[in-house]
């Protein structure tokens, strides 16, 4: 008999929540708040006025850094994938930056830029752009030489091969890079805000100092919901705009 997937998912979540509730009851809410306590704290946090402005300021500053990272990362990654010269110039930097965590460069950026908008957007940009670059480089290197040959056999010019073969072949990967980049942008933004005790990261910081872990868990749940929501939205957009790719990978 086939069990519906949704039911299995729900069962898994239910079991985890039950285990969490039992553990929380044993350890006390200073260490592990129970789901029931977290739900109550979540309602309080949402009612409290400070959440929405914090989310807003986090959201727009992150988006500025993220969109800049996409705007620079996609063309740069494509150039690296299609040109050996660009690849050999940029790759060492990309490799260096991609292994450095955002937290490690935050102190330097605070010294350089202070604690304002420029700082937050710059951290997001630096932490995101190389993941976008790496994704697009691989995608651009993977463009089928056979299909480029087909275009050539129809006498397509360099520009036409770019326009009719490389660009459409890369389209689904732009959306994949957008998804990967968004996750890194959000992480970097939270890290930056925790350092300067501002916005949503600031709330997380303060909640960590609380006697109960319930509000902290509540904020983490909000963060997870945001991240999952945003990446799902991007995945949906990818399926809508490149159905040939989506249905091929789902097959």
């Amino acid at each position, binding site marked *: 008999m086939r069990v519906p997937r949704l039911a299995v998912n729900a069962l898994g979540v239910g079991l985890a929540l039950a285990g969490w509730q039992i553990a929380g009851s044993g350890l006390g809410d200073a260490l592990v708040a129970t789901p029931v306590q977290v739900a109550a704290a979540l309602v309080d946090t949402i009612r409290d006025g400070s959440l929405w402005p914090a989310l807003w300021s986090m959201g727009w500053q992150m988006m500025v850094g993220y969109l800049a990272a996409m705007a620079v990362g996609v063309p740069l990654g494509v150039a690296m994938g299609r040109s050996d010269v660009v690849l050999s110039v940029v790759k060492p930097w990309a490799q260096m930056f991609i292994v450095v965590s955002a937290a490690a460069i935050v102190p330097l950026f605070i010294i350089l830029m202070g604690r304002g908008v420029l700082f937050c957007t710059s951290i997001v940009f630096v932490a995101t752009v190389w993941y976008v670059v790496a994704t697009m480089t691989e995608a651009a290197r993977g463009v*089928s030489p*056979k*299909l480029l*040959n*087909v*275009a*050539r*056999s*129809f*006498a*397509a010019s360099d520009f*036409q091969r770019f326009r*009719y*073969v490389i660009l*459409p*072949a890369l*389209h689904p990967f732009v959306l994949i890079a957008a998804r990967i980049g968004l996750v890194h942008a959000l992480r970097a933004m939270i890290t930056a805000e925790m350092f300067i005790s501002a916005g949503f990261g600031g709330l997380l910081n303060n909640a960590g100092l609380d006697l109960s872990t319930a509000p902290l868990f509540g904020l983490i749940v909000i963060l997870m919901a945001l991240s999952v929501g945003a990446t799902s939205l991007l995945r949906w957009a990818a399926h809508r705009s*490149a*159905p*040939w*790719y989506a*249905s*091929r990978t789902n*097959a």
Partner: protein
Amino acid sequence: MARLSVSNVSKSFGDVPVLIDQSLEVADGEFVALLGPSGCGKSTLLQIINGLTSVDSGRVVLDGQDVTGKSGSGRGMVFQGADLFPWRSAIENVAFGLEVMGVGKAERLSRAREYLHLVGLKGFEDAWPHQLSGGMQQRVGIARAFCVRPKLLLMDEPFGALDVQTRDILQDELVRIWEAERKMVLFVTHGIEEALYLADRILVFSKRPARVLKEIVVPFDRPRRETMKLAPEFLELRREISELLRHDITA
């Protein structure tokens, strides 16, 4: 009168000579098969005629025009694995060559529809390539090459990746389409039966570096029927070519 003349073409890849001083002529409306063992260089010759591969020396002249090293103009190519653009629907794939040539949308789609119907894919205009079977994909590939109305059709083992039944059907389809729009065809294959069934003339190539071992004018009338594959004359020619090739490979 359309005519193809290839004279004294040589080509090496690095130190490996693939073609040495090869010439061939194709007359208007003639169907010529290039038959030989895999990897002998016959596909390279086809790509040279298509302008996808450069020559070390020699000339390719189509209708009095030197097209050596230049792709497009008057030639249409059908590739082994169909090699359709996965992000284009069937009809958009067929219209590709016209789009490259700058033909307006309405005109190129109406012409593409006509050729899609000719290859028996009415009703599949909006299908994605991955939704089509291997045989149907190759029908689209054939329509794509016909749609630019080439004088010379180049086919590189177009049915090599298909199962025997599909191949037999597509061979008949190709003959039917070609009889409706008679043009020069160069058909690369390693199938002796296929070459005898389809071609007016067969050039039997040696192992690498490729040279013509024998030129065979196929003595069967058109239209050809499946039953002729069992005629004694057909079987005798088949045996003769088979021995010629085996002798060359073991020599």
